């Protein structure tokens, strides 16, 4: 089995991944899939300038190499 770690953020974006894991579809393809939750942000400083906000948002695990795939 090939180990893969995937980030999960909003469920609506990752629903097929959750269904695939719970129904053994990754396993059937030889993939040992592990999910890591994206970092949830609390209240943020309000701004009208997008340049004030880091575009990485909660996808820190991917940037740090802890997961190998995520969807956005």
């Amino acid at each position, binding site marked *: 089995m090939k180990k*893969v770690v995937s980030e999960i953020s909003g469920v*609506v974006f990752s*629903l*097929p991944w959750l*269904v695939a894991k719970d*129904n053994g579809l990754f396993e059937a393809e030889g993939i040992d*899939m592990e999910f890591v939750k994206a970092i949830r942000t609390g209240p943020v400083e309000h701004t009208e300038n997008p340049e004030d*906000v880091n575009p990485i948002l909660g996808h820190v695990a991917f940037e740090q190499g802890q997961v190998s795939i995520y969807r956005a």
Partner: protein
Amino acid sequence: MRSAVASQAIMVPPDSPHNYPGTLGNQPVAVNFHAGSHYVGLRLLEGYLPVEKIKLVHYGSPIHRFESMLNGEVAAAVVMEPWIALGEKLGCKTVAEGHYLGAENASEDMDEETFAAINRAVENAVDLINADKRKYLHYLIDDPSFAQAAAKYGGLTPEDFHLPRLRYTRPAVYTDEMVEDTYNWLTRWGLLSDLACSADLVDNRIAEPASADD
């Protein structure tokens, strides 16, 4: 492309005077900058308003956008499911809504065989979901990041969802035209440096060209 063709809706409170996007000029609209709510919010509002009247404000996570709209702190908020379903259950009005594409972002060291195996599993899951969407709504309803917040508004049941809004397709590649159109749109809004080259942004090398939308 990812399999979720998600939707973002511009929502206003039940008693809001706004009934279509054209009256939201110079009114604060809560979004999450550099994410779907930001991009779809711009795409929807620019069809109704001059650029200088569009006032998006970064509020971060969906709960903060949703509640800032509900309590009147902002005129409107851009949210996705299951927040749209919750808003509609509470009588909030959707003044505009748009579906959009997203990406599967894989690390450079993911090999073609692994990526293809993942996509096959996801494709099979998409088929399961599309065969009976309501069966899988519990994933949305019970997600801790949503359920805890939604509980104080009465929560959701599977019957509260508009199923055609939930669209899942088989993962596919971005065409050059899609990349170029998106690149041009992002640079026009100043959301991407025009020093970047569109060819640097998407690498379809390990996606399966045979995959297609349902």
